[in-house]
């Protein structure tokens, strides 16, 4: 920090504008206050319960995307991996009669394998992640449709929903899980060797490799973790819904990119903010919730979401400009 940042509210403000997650924090806070004042049902415990559960769900979906975005890639097959996990778990429990906890392990293994599949082609053959994951999303989606034949699996045992539907003192269990995950992410990217290597790879892969980082392995790791988070998100989805729907994951792509970008993770890679995730995950949940409460036709939902993402990116552009100017002093 330069001299003029020390002390004073102006200095604190200026330091705040430099945070890549500043826009998300401000926007979420403003929206939260507006909804609290403007609608009657927003602050009811029931509604808050749902908003925060949705926020947690968003965060897990977005982490799957963010882990590849920070190494400068993307995962278009995120939703298909989620869908496949759901189908593997549902099929194992309902058709094959496998114990639920084993089914969950199978589901997570599915995510890991799908991630490895993507990562192998991206790192080994140096293929573009856009092309590889576009192709694999079709592969995985085909498996989803083929295995499930489009049928939902509804015989999910009750204990499976304890995580997604339960609470401790009114706070959804999923929120605790989200906080745990975000703390792990924060610590991993600040203190762990692997986390720092992932960030370096995303910052400049050439320079990272020429500094002794095995960037191929980092790409493989990031893609594998991406698959793992997609299937964690899928498990939570089943737990929250109480059924295993093959259609799960259909809207994950837009949600995952929106939360990642609004949360201050640069699409060019190299940065991440755990706090930004919390706020942008909440922001997406608030938006959907608010649109319903304002009585907006749900069929137009994605139009609004798209506009909000565009707006967020514009605000971020403005913020970066302001922060850049003050830095040059």
């Amino acid at each position, binding site marked *: 920090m330069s001299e003029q940042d020390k002390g004073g509210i102006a200095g604190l403000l200026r330091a705040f504008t430099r945070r890549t997650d500043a826009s998300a924090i401000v926007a979420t806070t403003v929206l939260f206050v507006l909804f609290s004042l403007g609608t009657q049902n927003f602050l009811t415990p029931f509604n808050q319960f749902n908003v925060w559960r949705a926020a947690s769900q968003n965060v897990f979906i977005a982490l799957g995307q963010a882990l590849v975005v920070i190494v400068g890639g993307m995962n278009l097959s995120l939703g298909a991996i989620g869908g496949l996990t759901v189908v593997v778990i549902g099929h194992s429990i309902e058709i094959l009669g496998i114990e639920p906890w084993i089914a969950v392990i199978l589901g997570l293994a599915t995510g890991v394998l799908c991630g490895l599949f993507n990562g192998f082609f991206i790192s080994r053959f140096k293929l573009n992640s856009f092309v590889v994951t576009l192709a694999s999303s079709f592969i995985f989606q085909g498996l989803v449709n083929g295995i499930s034949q489009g049928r939902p699996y509804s015989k999910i045992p009750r204990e499976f929903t304890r995580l997604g539907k339960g609470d401790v003192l009114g706070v959804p269990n999923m929120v605790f899980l989200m906080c745990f995950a975000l703390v792990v992410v924060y610590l991993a990217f600040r203190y762990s060797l692997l986390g*720092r290597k992932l960030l*370096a790879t995303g*910052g*400049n892969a*050439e320079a990272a490799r*020429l*500094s*002794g980082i095995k960037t191929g392995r980092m790409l493989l790791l990031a893609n594998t973790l991406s698959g793992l988070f997609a299937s964690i998100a899928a498990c939570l989805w089943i737990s929250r819904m109480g059924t295993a729907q093959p259609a799960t994951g259909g809207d994950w792509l837009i949600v995952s990119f929106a939360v990642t970008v609004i949360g201050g993770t640069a699409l*060019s890679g190299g940065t991440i903010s755990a706090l930004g995730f919390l706020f942008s995950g909440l922001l997406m949940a608030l938006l959907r919730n608010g649109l319903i409460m304002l009585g907006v036709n749900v069929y137009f939902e994605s139009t609004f979401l798209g506009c909000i993402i565009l707006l967020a990116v514009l605000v971020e552009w403005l913020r970066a400009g302001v922060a850049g100017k003050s830095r040059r002093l």
Partner: protein
Amino acid sequence: MLEIHSVSKSFPGVLALDDVSVDLRGGEIHALLGENGAGKSTLMKIMCGIYSPDSGEILLDGKRLVLKDYHDAIRNRISIVHQEIQVVPLASVAENIMLDKLENFARGPFVDWKALVAQAQCHMDMVGLDVPSRAPIAGLSAAQKQLAQIARALSSGARVLLLDEPTSSLTLHEAATLFALLDKLKEGGVAVVFVTHKLEEVLEVCDTVTVLRDGKLIETRPIAGLERGRLVEMMIGRTMRDDYRGFLPEPGEEVVLEVRGFKSEFFDGLGLSLRKGEILGLYGLVGSGRTELAKTIIGEYPRTAGELLVHGAPARIRSVSDALHKYRIGYVSENRKEEGLILSASVVTNIAITVWERLAGALRAFFSPKAERLRGEEMIKRLEIRTPSPMQSVEKLSGGNQQKVSIAKWLVADCDILIIDEPTVGVDVGAKASIHELIWRMASEEDKSVILISSDMPEMISLARRILVFKEFRIVGELADLNSTHHASEDVGRMIGEYLA
């Protein structure tokens, strides 16, 4: 024709041009000489509207000329050919040549390809570029692309043609073709500005020479009657002699690095050895195989045959990670922005990245940002890196300070063997001197072994105490006695020139 009047230009931290005046006349080839960072390219960019001067003015045919951008320059028939190759790879040769004037060939919304190719062909003939005009330009050699760029400049009807090191990637024969062309243009009344590092070319081809040093105009004078030695003196001034650092302590007999019979897509049996405490210079033109050798040593490029010995034992290096962690060999890239630094990351991150593994200890899991920062701050102090804060992102630093960061990361890693590729490209004079001092001290005081790759002759003479001369991926000569006999820098230059010829 084009007059530059007391032009100055500064960049943050550097006064790149200080009150420089030059007159360009039609029908004259004007050489612009100076060391790296002397202000040549800044001056060229001002002449063609890419930079605007802070003060001073430009007159074209006696009338004041204000260039808003490069398009403005083209309209005024001033063209530049950059040293870097700038083409659209998959477009045809003809299309690349006519790229900036496609609208001249518009027939309604379509392009009149026949006319375009015909005219491009005419300019290709003029520069002696003998390739199919409809083939993609990507398939051409660097030299051919360079000729295509010159053809592009000519096809805009340039009256003032600025050439930035046009021969650096050309063979002798290709260069001769280019010189014949320049003679023709000269007769046609074009004013040509020619930037080069090859003094022989200046003496042979040019009519007038302007020398810049540290952003200042040293002299403009006719070439006739000028000798090579005098030219060198004008360029490097007195500092050259002060720069001579004497001898290194006699390097031990221990050979720390030995390359035996390297064969690869580049080399056909190349060998060299590096002794402890030595600064070994690899001199040659850009593209003569020095960087390729460095990258083959550190495992970045594969080899098909040959042996690498480190401290006398065969070494298996398949990645920079192996080179750094197993053998303590470091490589400072010539291309700091693309290969050396993570621009968006902090100074500390960029310096400490090579020691993360070590900071993480035996578990290789976690390390404290505090320990990392300490390492970074230590280097910032030692190398006098000017940054507002250790956590400042590297992209905000000046070129010289960026270069210091990209060297610092290998110093902090405590490498025994360091390969330094073009350490002072685009670095101002002050930073250059301190980088030289740093390299010298590594060998003279810390007993490290350094391979110095440089195309900057004074730099080579100042630092290296044994020089291998590279040409077309082979070693064509060795100057072995520099650490026992003091040769005048002109003599060293001449000896190298003989090996290159």
